[in-house]
């Protein structure tokens, strides 16, 4: 029986492992591959915000929602609507122009409305037959070898993005080879129907600031809406404030401190019911001590 030559095996294994380690250190640390062909998903957060803003501005200009959706998908957000709403809050909080935040909110709303109005994939019609969904399909071939750099096939102008050497190709199912007319410029989408005042509660909570007016703005799907302008007027005064500046309390939340003996009128700038005669109520603690309570108003799209 032959003895295993451990000394020789070890003499080969050690330099092999040493070489492997050196190779990895060189390729991962000393000289990693340079990034030249990055995708938007790998961008830093602030650049992604900028990318989203420009997508929203382009959407505001063209009204081309499929193209905006395709572009947003490149950023890899798990929920584009939430990402847009959160960004609108950040923009307002950092004092950016309201118009720019409004474009971002408008795109979020358009996506939300489109999501609700578009039948989901795999749904069935009244007869039980599958219903096709006219959505944009994204084929992700990230691991595939890059294809040649030949001129891309002529695509309709409505196609979201033309890519070459393409790990990602975007093919609208519903517009095969049929060029569709480009949408004309459209105004920024509005929030749709005026909001209705669906709730008005008196809040007697001594833990809250005195005279706190809380406003909650919801869309018809009961999703909180950020960036909605609220106009509050009183005898000799007027002020505007926005939802979403306190994201920890909700995207559609805004508040205002009322003073004693002042009557306020509250309305959403985009059109809503008017909350008239709003005053800070007087409340009592359990020990009988009086304090200034608050009011909570809820506006919702019908």
């Amino acid at each position, binding site marked *: 029986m032959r003895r295993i030559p451990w000394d020789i095996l070890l003499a080969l294994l050690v330099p092999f492992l040493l070489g*492997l380690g050196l190779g990895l250190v060189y*390729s991962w640390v000393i000289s*990693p591959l340079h990034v030249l062909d990055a995708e938007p998903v790998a*961008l*830093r957060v602030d650049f992604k915000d*900028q990318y989203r803003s*420009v997508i929203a*501005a382009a959407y505001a200009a063209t009204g081309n929602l499929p193209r905006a959706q395709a572009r947003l998908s490149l950023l890899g957000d798990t929920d584009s609507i939430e990402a847009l709403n959160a960004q609108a809050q950040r923009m307002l909080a950092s004092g950016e122009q309201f118009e720019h935040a409004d474009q971002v909110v408008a795109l979020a709303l358009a996506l939300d409305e489109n999501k609700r109005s578009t039948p989901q994939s795999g749904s069935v019609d009244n007869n039980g037959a599958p219903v096709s969904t006219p959505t944009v399909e994204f084929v992700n071939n990230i691991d595939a070898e890059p294809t040649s750099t030949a001129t891309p096939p002529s*695509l309709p102008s409505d196609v979201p993005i033309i890519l070459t050497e393409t790990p990602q190709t975007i093919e609208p199912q519903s517009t095969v080879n049929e060029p569709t007319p480009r949408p004309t410029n459209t105004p920024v989408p509005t929030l749709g129907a005026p909001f209705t005042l669906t709730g008005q509660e008196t809040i007697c909570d001594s833990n809250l600031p005195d005279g706190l007016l809380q406003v909650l703005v919801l869309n018809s799907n009961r999703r909180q809406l950020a960036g909605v302008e609220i106009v509050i007027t009183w005898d000799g005064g007027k002020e505007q404030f926005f939802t979403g500046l306190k994201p920890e309390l909700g995207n559609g939340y805004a508040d205002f401190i009322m003073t004693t003996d002042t009557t306020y009128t509250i309305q959403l700038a985009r059109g809503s019911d008017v909350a008239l005669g709003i005053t800070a109520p007087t409340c009592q603690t359990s020990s009988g001590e009086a304090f200034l309570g608050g009011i909570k108003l809820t506006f919702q799209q019908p």
Partner: protein
Amino acid sequence: MTTNRSLWVFIILALITGIGLGLAYGWVIDPVDYFDLTPDTLRADYKADYVLMTAEAYRFEQDPGLAARRLAIFGTKSPSAIAADGLDYARTNGFSDTDIALIQELVTALQAWSGIQ
């Protein structure tokens, strides 16, 4: 003596094989993943699409200063040069005539805007 020399040959071969495999793994099989990148690293088609988005917005807003700020995220070049690069890419890669015209309009506007800065 001969056995010793051939052992050293095998040791060096093992080392070279290890280095080669390490490099192949680190550069090809599992290269470094990058996050938090800057826009100048974007692939050319994404850059061109960003220029197109800026051009679409510019057509509506007619604000070359704002368009220039949007393009400034690419850094090193002037906004008009960035837009011109996007235009070159669009022309050579089958963008629609409408999109090319939009980018052309942006390039012209930014060149004029640069002139008065």
